[in-house]
């Protein structure tokens, strides 16, 4: 018994190393920079912002209750947003869900010009000049996209551009489930 313990003792460093190696292996496919959202399955934060196109019109959280909708944070200075924009424009044509833009830390002029140039998939864009609503939603790197259900609860967040694969594999099935 003590002989067994003695040999096991010497194997301990090897076992510890193998455990560490296992974690390192798993880690190669994780992204340490990606920050998951603490808002998932929690109510979306309160907001009230002016519309980008129509300064006189205000939109708040209550206006979006009762439907499943996408909130997409974008900006005219954001290079990666250009990558995902055609995907959103295409998706908007299907009218499956309303897409609301969150124009993050931008100017009205630049934002409108960008939409004119690259297309406008949004039913409207919220004009978040100071970025406060962005902070409330935990935005840290545009583009980011949130899927919010009929009760106003955040169900999904994508950090980085929305790709067609992501749309088909994750977002659309989830929309269908939430709409059912």
């Amino acid at each position, binding site marked *: 018994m003590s002989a067994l313990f*003695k*040999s096991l003792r*010497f*194997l301990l*460093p*090897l076992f510890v*190393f*193998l455990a*560490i*190696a296992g*974690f*390192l*292996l*798993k*880690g*190669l*496919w*994780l992204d*340490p*920079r*990606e*920050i*998951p959202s603490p808002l998932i399955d929690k109510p979306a934060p309160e907001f009230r912002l002016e519309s980008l196109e129509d300064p006189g019109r205000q939109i708040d959280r209550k206006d979006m209750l009762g439907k499943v909708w996408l909130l997409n944070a974008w900006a005219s200075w954001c290079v990666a947003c250009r990558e995902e924009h055609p995907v959103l424009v295409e998706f908007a044509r299907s009218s499956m869900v309303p897409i609301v833009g969150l124009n993050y830390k931008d100017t009205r002029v630049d934002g409108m010009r960008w939409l004119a140039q690259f297309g406008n998939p949004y039913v409207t864009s919220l004009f978040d000049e100071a970025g406060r609503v962005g902070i409330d939603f935990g935005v840290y790197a545009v583009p980011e996209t949130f899927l919010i259900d009929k009760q106003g609860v955040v169900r999904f967040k994508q950090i980085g551009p929305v790709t067609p694969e992501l749309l088909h594999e994750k977002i659309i099935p989830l929309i269908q489930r939430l709409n059912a």
Partner: protein
Amino acid sequence: MIPEIGNFALMVATAVAVVLGTLPIIGAARGNVRWMELARPAARVLFLLVVVASSCLVASFLHDDFSDVYVANNSTHALPLPYKLAAFWGGHEGSMLLWLQILSFWIFAVSIFSAHLPREMIARILGVMGLVALGFLLFIILTSDPFDRLLPAAAEGNDLNPLLQDPGMVVHPPMLYMGYVGFSVAFAFAIAALLGGNLDATWARWSRPWTTVAWTFLTIGICMGSAWAYYTLGWGGWWFWDPVENASFMPWLAGTALMHSLAVTEKRGGFKVWTVLLAIFAFSLSLLGTFLVRSGVLTSVHAFASDPRRGVFILLFLATVIGGSLALFAWRAPKVGLGERFEMISRESMLLTNNVLFLAAAACVLLGTLYPLILDALGLGKISVGPPYFDTVFVPLMAPALFLMGLGPLARWRKANLPEIAARLKWAFAVSVVCAVLVPLIEGRWSALVAAGILLAAWIFGTSVVNLWSRVRPTAGGQIRTKLAALPRGYVGMLVAHIGVAAFIVGVTLVKGYEVEKDVRMDAGDTVAVGPYTAKFLGTTEGEGPNYVYLRGQFDILKGERLVRTMHPEKRQFNARGEPMTDAAISPGITGDLYISLGEAVSQTAWVVRVYYKPFIDWIWGGCLLMALGGVLALSDRRYRLAQRRATASEVTVAGAASGA
């Protein structure tokens, strides 16, 4: 043409490494003298080939050969010459070649300074190092080749990262790698001893100088990295517990434990298993550090561009080397004998406790560094582990070791007499307590943490003085001067290194306790009081460097009414890379640094300026340099003198061959 020669040299080197890594080791197991004799020449050929490859890379940089991808990514025509050379290790591929170059240098050195080693031993040592080199060669050729071509060639390069265009960065990586990679020698010695089944005091004696050299370089390398961060990064910090910093600190902790452990194995024949394990740990942590920096598994300011493919390769390499050596350890170590007897309280047991403490410290740093990854991998959330954690956990862990530093050198081998030690040290303890209480009061604000730090530092210093005095105190045996001259260099090295630790603690404690930081808005003519000085802003001038434009601020520094000096912090805009860089102005001093850096311009003439007064901060790096000096002194000990070694070489080889098998 030149890059192709470089590539070819690497491929031939790979073939040589295959030979070096297999035949001598098999030869040693089978008693095949011819295969064993291959080790030394193969080692030297390997080194020469890697030198050829490195020279090709250097030549490509010097010729501005932008048809080489790596050169194009890390240099420009206007880059000053020293930085063209440093650009060698400015990016991932080149730094891997530097790793390999330094490893092959160590292999070469071992092949030269090992005439006294038995044939089987040297065959195994060089063989193991050859296998490690093989791993790196394959990694470079298959995933990270600095000789890849860019066709058509770029007209102008991308410039070396501006943060690296600094004298500190020219020296820091090579120093660090000399240390990091140098632990491969102790590792190879340990594996060779496990393979040959001859772990004894002679093995420890042979290993020791190699370990001390590597440790010294690593100490200098880490010290330089910290000093560089301080004076380049612009926010006055000198240690961030960043994953890559930790990656160099963990081998240092293991290496320190190893050095102390080797001393015991050499003198008393004890701790053999511990020492072997520590040698494996030290180098394993070096390799692990290499993995962490390049795999994208952790985020870090230092991290190279990540690539999962590279990550997988290094991980496989890690698994083979570390897993293999730990498996060999598990198999062979239980058979090793016990060594001499020592009591529960003795210098041996204190040094063993020291080992446990240093290993626990290394484990603590490893845990903190890997924890975010572990949680993420288990799907348990994403957290950050930063300086607040490490500062809280690491310091209390090290404190007992620092206390032991006072007792250990005074303790007898085999059986320590605690009451005697206490009697000898009671004054040192009293003085330490007095200092601990006085210093915070002198500085103007009481702090228990500062008191604790000063207590430990004064304790280490005081006990070192007591130790020294007991050996040089005039007696019938001789006068002070003769006794001083007769002190073994190794002993002096220990004292100097321990005093270096005390100086380091003083620096850290006083800086953290009493540094002053102010963010102020300054217009031309405004003044700000900081520490014992007043800084007056005189405005900015513009100018051009070799590959950048700059705005230079001018500050007059006054003590009372007297102008002491002027300081010139800069904001630099590099032509090729287009990102502004802050170059802080630092006025160093033994009692404290004045540190000024330009923030943002808030109007045509006014700037936000950050000024710091950092008391005793240079004692941090001074302490590290003292530690390194201690290492150098230990190496210059009479026992390692070459002439003496050569005289006994022939006798020893015969006797050694008998004991080595």
